[in-house]
């Protein structure tokens, strides 16, 4: 069944139950991928998954039910389930289904949609990555993996107020994990790209192998306070982990410390941060949010000052604000929440070499691990495993590993001392981040005594 047929079945069932406010959210994805391992092809896969959620308002409460089996019988069963669930909700949020407004613009997507790739091309690319890694260094070792694939995602939303939206986005990706071994010491480097043309595969291999070799022979780092440079990739990872502090609902619930900070300085004056659903490097741009509101680019932080938090319709109404078009669903079945599309940290003007020279003595953080466990999104505190390089005499020096860094993300935003000029983007699907490398003072390191 396609979305139009699904919608017709559910709308008819809703009307038959006497419902007047309801919506249907549909998200399905298909993907294709090929993998190679230790110089040989290892796996190929085709996937199709997703489903539909029906929501309705009953006596001022929203109930929902979700399923993946899109037959008429199973779809019809969602309606009474959603109604029964509505009766058990006691959140005092008035249900809001978005009524399309004159002038709503859903046409801002600039990304070209890549075609679904052919399996034979993916296999060739996965093997090319293997060949390139093994050719790049005699130290290449077992465990070297590569994967190349493509995916399309279709999101559709229709409601009883006349909203009827569909958007399909697609992406390609290539990943490689190069493993090297020198005299029994293993090391690895990872790289990802949104393309799998020859030039991208070569560039990725250089990056992955370069990182793997650079990490060999890593030593310990002494416990103490450091002036640190976070690589663009790790700055992105931290932004993604702490995205929830900009969530307007978390602020209302007291789960973000930014609730009363709009209009005040929360970061160093050079810091700017945007949420951009149409970020140029993102092939999966999204013209509407999970409530059907048109999406827009907005500044969260400009020159260090907090400009706005992120809202959906319900939270905006409670907070006395307007929606920022940031309603999101983690999957087709997840309740509506609030999330950025692409958190993009504004570029500064220092190259990486200039950042090292500015810091003089410190540590360059190129790896952070276990962020899901070591970062507390409510308090801003973090204490996480890290690896990287010493910064000595203003230059990148010996590799270091097996230490932790600790600090607080809110404090870190204020302690940013310089911002790099080269922005890197990454992430997958509808949620991505973009950031340059930044330098931050007063990072606590635990390592050797």
């Amino acid at each position, binding site marked *: 069944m396609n979305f139009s047929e699904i919608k017709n079945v559910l709308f008819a069932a809703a009307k038959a139950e006497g419902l007047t406010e309801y919506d249907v959210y549909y998200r399905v994805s298909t993907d294709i991928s090929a993998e190679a391992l230790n110089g040989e092809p*290892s796996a*190929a896969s085709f996937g199709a998954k997703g*489903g539909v959620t029906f929501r309705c308002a009953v006596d001022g409460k929203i109930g929902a039910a979700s399923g993946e089996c899109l037959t008429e019988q199973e779809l019809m069963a969602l309606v009474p389930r959603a109604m029964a669930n509505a009766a058990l909700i006691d959140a005092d949020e008035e249900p809001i289904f978005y009524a399309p407004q004159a002038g709503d613009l859903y046409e801002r997507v600039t990304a070209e949609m890549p075609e679904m790739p052919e399996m034979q091309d993916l296999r060739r690319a996965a093997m090319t990555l293997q060949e390139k890694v093994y050719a790049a260094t005699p130290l290449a070792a077992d465990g070297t993996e590569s994967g190349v694939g493509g995916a399309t995602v279709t999101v559709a939303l229709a409601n009883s107020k006349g909203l009827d939206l569909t958007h399909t986005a697609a992406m390609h990706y290539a990943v490689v994990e190069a493993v090297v071994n020198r005299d029994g010491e293993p090391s690895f480097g990872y790289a990802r790209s949104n393309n799998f043309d020859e030039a991208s595969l070569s560039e990725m291999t250089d990056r992955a192998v370069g990182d793997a070799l650079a990490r060999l022979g890593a030593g310990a780092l002494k416990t103490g306070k450091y002036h640190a440079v976070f690589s663009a990739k790790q700055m992105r990872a931290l932004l993604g982990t702490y995205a929830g502090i900009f969530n307007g609902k978390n602020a209302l619930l007291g789960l973000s410390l930014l609730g009363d900070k709009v209009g005040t300085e929360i970061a160093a004056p050079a810091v700017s941060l945007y949420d951009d659903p149409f970020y140029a490097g993102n092939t999966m741009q999204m013209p509407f949010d999970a409530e059907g509101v048109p999406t827009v680019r907005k500044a969260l932080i400009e020159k260090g000052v907090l400009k706005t938090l992120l809202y959906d319709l319900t939270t905006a109404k409670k907070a006395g604000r307007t929606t920022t078009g940031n309603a999101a669903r983690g999957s087709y079945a997840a309740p509506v929440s609030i999330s950025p599309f692409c958190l993009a940290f504004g570029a500064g003007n220092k190259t990486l070499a200039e950042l090292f020279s500015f810091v003089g003595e410190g540590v360059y953080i190129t790896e952070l691990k276990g962020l899901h466990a070591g970062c507390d999104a409510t308090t801003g505190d973090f204490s996480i*495993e890290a690896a990287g390089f010493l910064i000595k005499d203003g230059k990148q020096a010996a590799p270091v590993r097996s230490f*932790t860094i600790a600090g607080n993300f809110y404090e870190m935003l204020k302690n940013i001392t310089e911002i790099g000029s080269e922005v890197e983007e990454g992430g997958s699907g509808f949620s991505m981040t973009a950031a340059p490398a930044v330098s931050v003072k007063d990072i606590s390191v635990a390592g050797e005594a």
Partner: protein
Amino acid sequence: MIEKSLLADLLSVAVSTGGDFAEVFAEREHVTRIRFLSDKVESIRDQVISGVGIRVFEGTKTYYASTTDTSREGLLACAAAVAGAVGEKGGKRKILLTPDTVENRTKIGRYPDDVPTREKTDLLREACVAAKTTDARIAQVDGSYLDTDREILVANTEGLFRTDRKVRTRIAVSAVASAAGENQSGFYGPGGGVGIEFFDAVSPASVGRRAAAQAVTNLTAAYCPAGTMTVAIENGFGGVIFHEACGHSLEATAVGIGASQMAGKLGEQIANEKVTAIDDGTIAGGWGSANIDDEGTPTTRNVLIENGVLKSYMIDRLGSRRLGLPMTGCGRRESYAYEPTSRMTNTFIANGPDKNEDIIASMEYGLYAKAMGGGSVNPLTGEFNFSVKEGYIVRNGKICEAVRGAALIGTGAQILQDIDMVGENLATGQGMCGSASGSVPTDVGQPLIRVKKITVGGRS
């Protein structure tokens, strides 16, 4: 879920192009998730997951396709897609499926679908109200309730045809304590591989109070000092140290491709002789238990390390081919959308020879990690990390002031040697483990243990 004759047809199509083995996995799972926030039932997620995955092996090469279209045409198209990736049209093979049953170890008292949702929202409300009223500084309580009822079917070209049904129930409370513009959090989330009778043994209010008490403790705690020290790690979810430090490195996923520090070490003394570690998918009512794994293999009690000696890996079907060792019944996946791989089930360090009070008394200065958060590991290097959610400084053999924000890091090989005392109060804790085949429920466990030296991350 799928008729036997159609299963045979699907398998026949799947291996028709050169594959030497094919498998059909079908599932239907009803999931209920309730969220309680700001003193109210916030949302109910009521979801039916259903779909099919078809896998083909050609030696150690794998081919996989998944679909939600479970009509005959949809399934045949899925089988044809996977066969098409293997090669050109080849010979037809007749598949004879032999249904059999595996012993059901867990008798479910109350199936989730037989219990009114209102009873479930009331259980969660009880937990959250208890958290909120524990202390005036509890500013916010975020509670969640989960139950799932999952039926699976596995059939393969070796004739295997088995079904299983697995029920899980869990309640979790996250509490935030607030004072002087500062927030601190506490969490507790017990669960079991049982029905709603889970709450006969676990009172929701006790769950809420435990999360709240932890948040309040952290509010008054100073930052943990950074450095290398002796650490005592409490039982229950403390077992996450073995899960991260060693468990993942013993999975065939890593061992079978040579990307594990534990590859080639069977029979070697890899841990202190006080350490015996077991992965046991057979425990009745265990959070990570099942009668069969997601490849149809009966689960086992798999002794991984005995008195410090490496005895076994965790081996799925593909891992068995790669390593030339028997399967251990641990091929798991989040859903039909994932190809299965070797995963932990209920993994724990067994009770040891030491008295718990002797462990604390033995520490001149160190950290007592009472409650743990999650962590991660790189099996290639064995470097792991995990976070301490509730910790105390130990001085002269006495547990003293609370400290917060600690992380423990090290390498698996080293930490196994450095576990030098093992206590006697084995208990387990429940978690969700994320890896190549998605997020699966895993139990971790241990008695109180002492690690003589480990890097503690904190803010000095």
